[in-house]
């Protein structure tokens, strides 16, 4: 048993070492040559107004560039409401009938 605990501690510490090493390798936050600043960012910042005619860039992305994603986001909400109703409302009725 004691050996097993030691093994667990060893595995946890080595995992922590690997993860902290990965964090240390991350590029500095907000640096202009980060991989997150690619053509996509330039396209959104430079062309969002021209391509969608909307001043609020978040709305331009959510409801135009990513409109398909937003549609299924609303369907996720729909499913959540449906699941709550099925679990709480229909279950009641079934209990009465039994």
């Amino acid at each position, binding site marked *: 048993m004691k050996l097993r605990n030691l093994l667990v501690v060893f595995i946890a510490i080595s995992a922590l070492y690997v993860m902290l090493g990965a964090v240390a390798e991350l590029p500095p936050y907000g640096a202009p040559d980060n991989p997150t600043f690619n053509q996509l960012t330039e396209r959104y910042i430079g062309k969002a*107004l021209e*391509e*969608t*005619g*909307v*001043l*609020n860039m*978040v*709305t*331009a992305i*959510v*409801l*135009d560039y990513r*409109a*398909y994603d*937003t*549609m299924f986001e*609303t*369907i996720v*909400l*729909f499913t*959540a*409401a449906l699941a*709550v*109703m099925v679990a*709480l*409302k229909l279950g*009641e009725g079934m209990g009465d009938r039994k």
Partner: protein
Amino acid sequence: MKIRDLILKRITTLVLPFIQVYGFYVIFHGQISPGGSFAGGIIVALGFIAYATAFGTEEGRAVLPEKVTISAESYGTLWYALLGMVGIVKGVPFLANKLAGIDLGVPGTISSGGLIALLGIGVGIRVASTMVTLFFTMLEEEV
């Protein structure tokens, strides 16, 4: 659940119109100001939730029957999908906006953005009705 408090009821009655108008303002101005349909929908739903909290669940349900919220939920999603069909009818991808040849208007005005404003209304109604449905369903179950 019923709270017997005169002050709470009076203040709710006074504040409620402002909450609702502000919620619809945020939904309709999503394309020109911070905020948008998700935030506006939550604010509209909060108006109904505040009313139901102050006046009791039965009164809240009388204002907004279950049938209305379920229809709003279903038809909001249908409205969004039908607006997406505009692109397919014009021969461009689903949910296309500028590609479908829709006039984008002058940026900064409330009519700008073509389909975006209409899509935002659909999403706002959906979010509001979902919040209200979840609130009422869970509250009625609890009692």
